[in-house]
């Protein structure tokens, strides 16, 4: 097992003899690392964040009195910092993070624990830590930390003990933070952690039968939590959580309760029609749509830009996820594949659940739509994850180049 590779400049070790062509001098693009980035992945990411800023610009004008660009300016700042973060991470060889797995994992668990202790409560949940200009949501950052750490542990575990034990330990490592996040309580993000854990295990090659067992356990747990526990008088979920999780099955029953949100989102998306309502988008503009700049931003897009706009947005996500899966396959090592799998699944899950919520086929959970939903933590962490993907891509490119060079 090789340790982390420092990105090598192909020309650094070049022989003194002059080469006629190409130039031995690295180009500016090469020196900054931009030359080796996945251009499609970058295009999708920047396309999405621009889409987000445009949507916020046309939707949130009147939200903050006296400051029509409150959300636009902040989201733009997050975007700039996020892109810089992505480029920075892309230049680092991700394989180094394998050695830091224990540190990463500890950082993740301790920040999540910290939020339970000192976090500020919004609407009855503790998810945030307040900073002077920024509220930081550790459970968002924890997603990426978990991917990097768990993939590292998975590699580690490959050489020890029985397969069943490995699976059990990895599961435990992945589901412990998920459980802590359930306590905040934040069901949606907790599920994201579960999905990441499953994806890493899946690409690590865990046996099908283990997945079957986990699947059975999940079904049993859901039955216990949603059906049996309330029936015997020991409710695990808070009332609104249970309602939100189940009300999407029956959205039209009572327009005033939690299904109100689903109904309003459906009306918003549906009324967008083929080409959208543009400035006539009253669902968003008149306040019928709740959380329109965060959780329900897809409904805003659907109403304002119609099927055309929503399909374009989904195409950007499809491009993003296709590139993530592509990077998974070209990774120079299994660690990179596992990270790519974790990130790809995280993005897929978030997109599917968030969009599904807006179109009424998934329950309401507070999962942000990556790069679209307003919010610093989410935007920065998503760019961080994309930086990791870029890093895997860059390393794969460099490896194949150096192999090609060696072959020469």
């Amino acid at each position, binding site marked *: 097992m090789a340790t982390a590779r420092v990105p090598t400049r192909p020309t650094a070790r070049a022989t003194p003899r002059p080469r006629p062509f190409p130039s031995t001098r690295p180009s500016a693009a090469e020196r900054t690392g931009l030359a080796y980035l996945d251009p499609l992945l970058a295009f999708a990411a920047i396309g999405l964040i621009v889409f987000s800023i445009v949507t916020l610009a046309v939707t949130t004008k009147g939200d903050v009195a006296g400051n029509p660009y409150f959300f636009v300016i902040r989201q733009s700042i997050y975007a700039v910092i996020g892109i810089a973060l992505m480029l920075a991470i892309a230049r680092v060889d991700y394989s180094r993070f394998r050695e830091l797995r224990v540190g990463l994992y500890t950082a993740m668990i301790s920040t999540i624990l910290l939020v339970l202790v000192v976090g500020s409560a919004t609407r009855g949940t503790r998810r945030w830590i307040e900073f002077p200009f920024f509220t930081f949501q550790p459970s968002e950052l924890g997603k990426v930390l978990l991917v990097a750490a768990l993939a590292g542990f998975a590699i580690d575990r490959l050489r020890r003990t029985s397969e069943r034990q490995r699976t059990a330990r990895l599961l435990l490592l992945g589901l412990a933070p998920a459980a802590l996040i359930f306590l905040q309580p934040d069901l949606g993000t907790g599920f994201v952690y579960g999905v990441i854990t499953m994806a890493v295990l*899946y*690409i690590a090659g865990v046996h099908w039968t283990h997945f079957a067992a986990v699947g059975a356990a999940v079904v049993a747990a859901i039955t216990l939590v949603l059906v049996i526990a309330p029936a015997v008088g020991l409710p695990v979920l808070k009332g609104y959580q249970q309602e939100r999780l189940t009300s999407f099955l029956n959205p039209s029953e009572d327009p005033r309760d939690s299904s109100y949100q689903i109904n309003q989102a459906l009306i918003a998306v549906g009324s967008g029609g083929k080409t959208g309502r543009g400035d006539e988008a009253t669902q968003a503009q008149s306040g*019928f749509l709740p959380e329109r700049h965060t959780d329900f931003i897809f409904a805003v897009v659907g109403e304002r830009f*119609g099927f055309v706009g929503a399909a374009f947005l*989904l195409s950007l996500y499809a491009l993003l996820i296709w590139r993530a899966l592509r990077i998974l396959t070209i990774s120079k090592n299994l660690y990179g594949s596992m990270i790519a799998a974790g990130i*790809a699944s995280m993005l897929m899950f978030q997109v599917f659940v968030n969009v599904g919520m807006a179109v009424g086929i998934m329950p309401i959970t507070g999962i942000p739509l990556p790069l679209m939903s307003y919010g610093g933590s989410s935007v920065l962490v998503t760019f961080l994850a994309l930086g990791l993907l870029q890093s895997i891509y860059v390393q794969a490119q460099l490896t194949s180049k150096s192999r090609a060079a060696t072959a020469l």
Partner: protein
Amino acid sequence: MYLPDRNRAPTTSQFAVRVAVLGGVALAMFSIIFLRLWYLQVLSGDRYLEEAQNNQIREIKVPAPRGEILDRYGKVLVDNRTALALQIQTQDLPVDRDQRKRVLKRVADLAGMSLEDVRKEIREQTKELPASPVTLKRDVAYPLVYYLQEHQTELPGVSVERVFVRHYPQGTLGAHIFGYVSEVTADQLEEPRYQDLSPGDQVGQTGLEYEYDHLLRGRDGATRVQVDALGRPRGAQLSSEEAVPGDSLRTTLDSQIQASGEAALAQFGGLPGAFVAMDVQDGEILGLGSYPTFDPSIFTRPSLSPALYKRLSSEQTGAPLADRAIQGLYPTGSTFKPITAVAALESGLITPDTPVTDTGSITVDTIEFKNAGGQAFGTITLPTALQVSSDVYFYKLGLEADSEKSEPIQTWASNLGIGSATGIDLPAEVDGLVPTPEWRNQLYDQGETDRPWSAGDSVNLAVGQGDLQTNPLQMAVAYAAIANGGDLVRPHLAQRVEDASGRVVQEFNPAPRGHVDIDPEYQGAILSGMHAGAMEPGGTSYPVFGGFPVDIAGKTGTAERGLFEEDQSWYIALAPYPDPKVVVAVTIEQGGFGADAAAPAASQILATYFEHPNAPGHAAPEAPAETGAGAYD
């Protein structure tokens, strides 16, 4: 099997399969979302667009003022005033319990009520009308309106609406006739009568307000405005439909006669009573009242407390809400005698000149029936019997009639409308009862009474005692029929309906319910007996009417109310004599002899009728006065 960690892209077939599966899952997810989006936006877009538009267009009801109720000269008896009502739209209140409580507490402070009172109002009003706004207070001051407008967002569901409230410029006058208006109830909305209404609409619940509700109601207008999720108007008014005010109802009432009648009833130390003044030719009601009365404006309060309602309807207080003129059921005493006389004359039992000897008493089946005062009037004919109100004379007629198969007294009483509702345009009129042998015998067979019909029942009926149950309105109609030659008029309060511009929409001239032929000779005999009873010495009401400037024909009545109560005083007058235009019927429960209470009350009403320069049905006040008292002395 865990994959080997090689320092190169893992390319085992197992890895490839797993990646392919992951890609497949992604593809499936995107397909599901695309299909769903296609369904929502392309296939169902129009439906959702409509819903989105409905979401923001709110119809604001513009209430139509109800039509006015006027007396026959156009004097306003009931109109509207606008009031600013503090309302709570319960479904717009915050769902969260604490926030809700905070809003209600603030509203309570603003309205000067306690939180408990506010909750109680909400509870009581939403029980009846769940969808309607709860009115906490009518007539709030403008500063509160401005305050609410400024703090609209902090007080969701709280608003001040301009509403029309019934207003009674004449105070309690005619309270029983007009009835009251309140929001249509959930049960009423199911009735076909109210099919066009929606919750929150005001409808007449009793009296004329109920009877002519569809004419008085008017049609609410609507303004369609664009609103946001909090219901705040934004953008332009989209369309508006003007409110059409209700039509006005011109009644047959003469407010002076009405006032005079109500004042006349009120002077007997709180004894309950009722009066009717009616045109004998066409059944127009000039006045109709019941005592005790109530203030109709209490029904314009947001809600009527159960305690107040109990006070208005309990026996102890004389049930002010009851309209005794059409709902009371009493025996009539001697005021029934003219009816017995018509029956006896028309069935041939007597002629006006048939002499009957009044020895002071008769004995029927071992029971002795005596004259009221214990006097004996000797041998008399019908007019004298009516003048002095000889009981024995009519006892004998009753006894004779009892042996007649045709039951002449019952038949003629029924023909003259006794014992059945008159069809007046007021709700909740009662029928009453003319006792017949069949009726009592059937009750006896069912074990509901202690004895079958006997001759004594006929004797009692002949003088208006016993099981007879009727009310002043039925008696007025019967007397009117005797006076007008047999037309059983349909008493009515509505004269015509006018729209807001004064155009007559509808006129009311209800045809008589029926006709019975009464021989003019018999009619003359009866009227002259009644005239003598009022205007000649020896007449039962001569002490009251002896000096009355206009000749009238009247009959006293003293009905027994059982062992422990004073008798009920009755008086029915037809005036002027000999060509009556108006009938006045008065009864005072426990008022004693007819001449003691009811007759003076009737004389006050008649005095008003004749003093009134525009009084209907007589040419000039001087004319009858000239023929005056002397002519028939």
